[in-house]
């Protein structure tokens, strides 16, 4: 009798433990609290908070068209989230996702508008591969400086972001400019070379999900993934065991940059079909927030979806209630700060050390 009771208590404690202290619940809690922040800030603005929330979700999920748009936003967010998550575990904070994304986009456009083939899929695959190569090129300098000269990668990748953005703009107003257009834009990708659709959204969305799933499987079940985990937990211990930390770092950074470039590629081949001046592809920095709130490659998918809801819904929210869509940046940043804070608070060992 007594033994049964003990087992029962243990099981329920485990559930409560998971609910309170698991990373999943902390992320969920942070996102919920950020909604409260949204309510407070919309009150400051003079808008009706209930209306604000309703218009936010209506804008993102209200109609079939908006759901599709939200899904289209989710794809690059998943990929940029992964692009920050993987190298972070290896010890490289990849803030350069934005630049890698843009170079990837321009590389994809270059292949799709300059090369021709009777078999469309050849060009499509080539463009996507080109976008991955473009992303890798964008990260080579920071990676080299980090590995050879131990230069802090945060500054270098952020500088690369600005360099890439300006380089891309220089391309679209100069060398790659559409001769028929009045403003800076590249030529339009021909219809045959655009990404085909599957269940209402372009293939890129499913590709992003598949990549996240494959990455999750990689990290969990392959030796490389275990080495990555080891390096992330304790670098010195990993070195002692014989894991080449540099190689793991380089591998993960190249993979991440390729995925970030791919995010740009699927966006231009699937949604915008061109790269124009003023074209907004703001997913680089959101990727950082997604990486932290997601925690692992699988968790990135729902978090990316939620942030896509925020981004899509915020425009409708602005037009309906007047609350500026710049709120969305606050709503991406605050949950991560909260997450970092709660993570410490709900870890008892660390908590006792602060006291």
């Amino acid at each position, binding site marked *: 009798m007594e033994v049964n009771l003990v087992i029962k208590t243990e099981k329920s404690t485990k559930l409560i433990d998971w609910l309170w202290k698991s990373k999943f619940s902390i992320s969920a809690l942070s996102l919920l609290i950020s909604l409260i922040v949204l309510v407070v800030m919309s009150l400051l603005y003079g808008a009706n908070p209930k209306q604000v929330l309703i218009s936010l979700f209506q804008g993102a999920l209200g109609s079939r068209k908006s759901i599709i748009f939200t899904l289209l936003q989710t794809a690059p967010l998943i990929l940029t989230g992964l692009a920050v998550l993987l190298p972070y575990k290896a010890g490289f904070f990849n803030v350069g996702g934005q630049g890698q994304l843009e170079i990837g986009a321009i590389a994809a456009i270059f292949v799709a508008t300059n090369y021709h083939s009777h078999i469309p899929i050849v060009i499509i695959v080539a463009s996507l591969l080109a976008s991955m190569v473009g992303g890798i090129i964008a990260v080579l300098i920071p990676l080299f400086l980090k590995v050879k000269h131990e230069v802090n990668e945060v500054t270098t990748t952020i500088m690369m972001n*600005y360099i890439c953005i300006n380089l891309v703009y220089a391309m679209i107003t100069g060398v790659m400019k559409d001769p028929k257009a009045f403003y800076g834009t590249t030529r339009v990708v021909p219809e045959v070379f655009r990404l085909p659709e599957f269940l209402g959204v372009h293939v890129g969305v499913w590709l992003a999900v598949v990549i996240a799933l494959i990455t999750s499987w990689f990290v969990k079940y392959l030796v490389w993934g275990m080495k990555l985990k080891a390096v992330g937990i304790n670098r010195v211990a990993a070195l002692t065991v014989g894991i080449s930390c540099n190689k793991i770092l380089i591998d993960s950074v190249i993979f991440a940059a390729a995925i970030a470039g791919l995010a740009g590629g699927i966006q231009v081949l699937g949604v915008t079909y061109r790269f124009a001046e003023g074209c907004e592809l703001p997913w680089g920095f959101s990727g950082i927030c997604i990486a932290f709130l997601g925690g692992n490659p699988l968790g990135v998918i729902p978090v990316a979806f939620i942030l896509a809801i925020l981004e899509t819904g915020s425009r409708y929210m602005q037009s309906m209630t007047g609350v500026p869509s710049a709120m969305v940046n606050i709503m991406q940043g605050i949950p991560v700060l909260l997450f970092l804070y709660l993570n410490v608070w709900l870890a008892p060992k660390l908590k006792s050390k602060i006291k």
Partner: protein
Amino acid sequence: MEISSWWIDFILASIRGATPLIYCALGVLIAEEVGVIYIGVEGVMLVGALAGILGVIFGGNLWAGLFLTLVAGVLCGFFLSFFLIWLPIDQVAAGIVFNLTALGFTSYIFRLCGAQAQKIVPTMKPLFLKISSFGVMAFIMVFFTWWFLFKTASGLKIRSIGENMHAAESMGIDIIKVRTVVFIIACVFSAFGGAALTLGWVRVFADNITMGRGFIALAAVYFAKWNPLFVLIGTLIFGAGEVLAFRSQATMSSINQYYFFMLPYALTILVIGLRGKSRGPAETGKSYIRR
């Protein structure tokens, strides 16, 4: 005759461009000397930039703007030190996320204030040899910081926290308190850097007006190997890069303008890359956990 006046003009413009960087770099420097990686400098600079403009527009005169900048800096200092100093979290990550939040926050507040906030602020009168008051103050602060950090006992205590936390603790220094105070001062510096950008130079606020200058200031500190005097040289170089970017656009308009906009950032990477590994204070970034 003409050539020398172009040079003088260029140097003055470089000083004007470097002034916001000097303030932010000093902020980063003292924060790192006390052991805090201060990636959030870009966000605090942006908040200070907004606070300066709002203070002048709603307060009426320059002192209101400076006072509001001071308040904004202190508030940011408290907010950030909560995450960076009082909790053992990854300082780099918290800093980057703070920058994103600050971007949204300043854009939001800017829109909240309506059309009034978009007025152009009157130009400040230059103080000394055509250098603005912000610039003169920046020079003074560089030397003051150098003197304070390297020539006084308090400065030594501050630096010791950055080098070896536990040794400093054993000397009786209250790590958390000193870190918080120094970090708040660092935030005030960065806020003034932002104000130097909007009040002293551009005279208007726009979304993300800092455009990565906080990070350039961070790079300047690495370049200067954590010496305030070399910070002056580093920021002047980067300021000159920015000025070149604007001026070349006018003279060599055949080359696409965006290549010139890349200049400050490419110069930054080049400078950091050539400088190689910089050894900063040994225990920067490590959270303080009592043993």
